């Protein structure tokens, strides 16, 4: 009796686990299959390097080079802004603060990480975009820069927590022997801790890049969504926002519809590459 129950339970667990894993694989295969229909008509190379996105035009008019560039551009701007701030904060958290203050600041950063992206987009539209319009006297503040600024705030928590964690370990490792030498804390950090945490800093950067490129709502609300070659102060388009905005309108089964899947597929490939890079960097962090 008892062992029958055991066997049934074990089988249920196995079946559900198998189902979950197959489901995950199925999602990827499904996206691939739907994009394949498009790639049968337009070659993947033309799709990627072509300059024009016009859903109402011919097949050759569906290509996403400017959109890929826009996706990358916004994320890179975000990282350029967020890295120095994030690393600086991580240094303070891991070495300069008492436990109580550390906890409080970390709590605040966790909250920052928990704010939904649509709220970031909302504030970005009302504050960042307006600010750019007034101060740079732009006709429209929706731009790569606006997207980058909003995104930089969103990736800050990832950067801070990744760096903070490893810096804390490195600091614990060296602080005693270094203070025995009579060296100041700032000297220790600049000459040992920062160089030692190089890989973690790089890992946090790649992580942030991946997060940023997949981000939808916040970016979509502040970049103006025009599929043109991106300029820092001009409108742009990213792959996630392209899919969000056009999927509802695209006729099911049309070339436009499959092209949207294809762009999703390209995004997944890019992110897969980034994740592989991240995995590679992480496996070499030996703290």
């Amino acid at each position: 009796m008892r062992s029958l129950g055991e066997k049934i339970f074990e089988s249920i667990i196995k079946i559900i686990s198998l189902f979950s894993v197959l489901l995950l694989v199925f999602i990827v295969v499904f996206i691939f299959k739907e994009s394949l229909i498009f790639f049968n008509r337009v070659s993947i190379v033309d799709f990627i390097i072509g300059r024009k996105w016009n859903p109402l035009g011919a097949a050759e008019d569906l290509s996403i080079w400017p959109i890929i560039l826009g996706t990358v551009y916004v994320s890179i701007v975000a990282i350029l802004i967020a890295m120095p701030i994030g690393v600086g904060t991580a240094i303070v958290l891991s070495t300069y603060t008492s436990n109580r203050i550390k906890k409080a600041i970390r709590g605040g950063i966790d909250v920052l990480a928990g704010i939904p992206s649509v709220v970031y987009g909302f504030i970005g539209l009302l504050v960042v975009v307006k600010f750019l319009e007034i101060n740079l006297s732009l006709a429209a503040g929706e731009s790569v820069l606006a997207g980058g600024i909003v995104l930089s705030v969103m990736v800050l928590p990832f950067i801070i927590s990744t760096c903070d964690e490893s810096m804390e370990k490195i600091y614990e490792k060296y602080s005693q022997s270094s203070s025995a030498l009579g060296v100041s804390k700032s000297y220790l950090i600049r000459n040992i801790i920062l160089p030692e945490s190089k890989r973690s800093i790089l890992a946090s950067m790649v992580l942030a890049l991946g997060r940023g490129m997949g981000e939808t709502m916040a970016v979509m609300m502040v970049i103006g969504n025009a599929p043109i070659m991106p300029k820092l102060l001009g409108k742009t388009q990213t792959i996630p926002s392209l899919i969000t905005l056009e999927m509802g309108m695209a006729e099911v089964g049309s070339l436009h519809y499959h092209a949207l899947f294809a762009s999703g597929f390209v995004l997944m490939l890019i992110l897969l590459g980034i994740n592989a890079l991240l995995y590679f960097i992480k496996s070499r962090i030996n703290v």
Partner: protein
Amino acid sequence: MNEKTKSFLFKGWILLSTLIVLAIVFYIFGYILSNGIESINMEFLLDGPSGIPVGSQGGIFPAIVGSLLLMLISCVFASILAISTSIYLVFYCESERIKGLIHLITQCMSGVPSIILGLFGYTFLVLYLNLGRSVLAGGLTLGFMIYPFIQVRVEKTLLEVDKSIINSSYALGISRTYTLFKLILPICKSDIVSAITLAGGFAMGAASPIILTAAVTFAPIPSSLSSPVMALPFHLYILTGEGISLEKAYGTALVLILLLLIINIISTIINITRKEHK
């Protein structure tokens, strides 16, 4: 540059960074709170949206209920899958290769952007399976999104249970299943619940997976799993994007953030009571 200047610049940099981060945290909350607080009253919380265009008057009650429903469905769905997979990986799977494969797949999945999941949910669930734009389709799509989040945390919790405690149960001649239900799961319960609540908050705030699968501009409280719903993040997007009402948008943002904060506090309390228990 001498050591003194270097040290000075260095300290200036890190201090400034921290101040910026703190300023952002306070600014965001201050901004939403000060602008949103006036919009919140009983009518806003308990009435449906009205006016022309819809949303310019009235409240957001259906969106609150819709968001909670979506969160509930996604949590139930994802937890069942994630907890089972974790139990399988920790207690039943004997092949290192299968373990590695499942970890790899889960990790890849956690890197898939939510809009791709939305795309899948829209095409497969809404169109192919004919679920339509509905609470069910949206909840399942959000479930795909939070599955890796819950799975990773639950597995970690299960692995942290002291091996010698588990062995002393086996040494009493007691079966795996009984050990799992009466010893391991009770020990991990609060960690698991807290992981699920955090994931729930994550699901509730997400707009991109539900734009195509569940959310609509106006709907009453759903009467069945196949009805479309209103949801707070989508409502906020529509109110701002279409320029319907800034005042209502501030209120919606504040309600959304407060709900998430409450969920976070609940999860923290669960964790603290557990620590005291030990």
